[in-house]
């Protein structure tokens, strides 16, 4: 069980797509920094992210900093830094995509 972090916007960069190709169903993806744009509803990549096999979470402070609380896809839950740390503990390892 892997925690993947992605810190690039899918609208600018292919990193999220690459992570999704490599991640397993039982893994978790955490969108951080500019990665949080992957959690937008109604955008070009929203359907892809919403239907992805692994669980997808988003880092709340990075989402809030960018003013996106009102645009968050309804299928994606948020975590704060405390939750981020807990995820790194409950998963076997962390793989960073950047």
């Amino acid at each position, binding site marked *: 069980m892997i925690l993947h972090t992605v810190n690039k*916007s899918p*609208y*600018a960069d292919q990193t999220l797509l690459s992570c999704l190709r490599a991640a397993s169903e039982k893994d978790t993806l955490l969108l951080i920094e500019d990665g949080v*744009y992957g959690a*937008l509803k109604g*955008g*070009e990549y929203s359907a892809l992210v919403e239907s992805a096999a692994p669980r997808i979470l988003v880092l709340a402070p990075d989402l809030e900093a*960018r*003013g996106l609380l*009102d645009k968050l896809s309804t299928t994606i839950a948020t975590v704060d830094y405390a939750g981020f740390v807990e995820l790194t503990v409950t998963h076997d390892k962390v793989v960073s995509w950047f």
Partner: protein
Amino acid sequence: MKSFLIITRRSPYGTSYGKEALDAVLMASAFVPVSLLFLDDGVFQIKQHQDADCIEIKDYSPTFAVLEQYDVKNIYVSASSLQHRGLTEKDLVLDVEVISDARIANLLDTNAVVLSF
């Protein structure tokens, strides 16, 4: 007098390009006619409700909202960039002119100097 077009293409906070584009706009506006274009992830620079305090970074989006006071009157945002991202004009901190790709090509053509960030 040469006119400048400044383009911001990056999202805020992940990199500092947005802040540096803003600084360039403010500086240029003191000397030359300036147009500003929000393109690609640059449209996120003017998303409403930003609050970078929660990641302990300085929030510069309020300055974008008052650019008219600095004589930056020509502020444009790409319609296709907004649309790809599920955003509309109402999501933005300032009144901008939403323009087509053809209009963007025209802006690139008609301004003497183009600076991109």
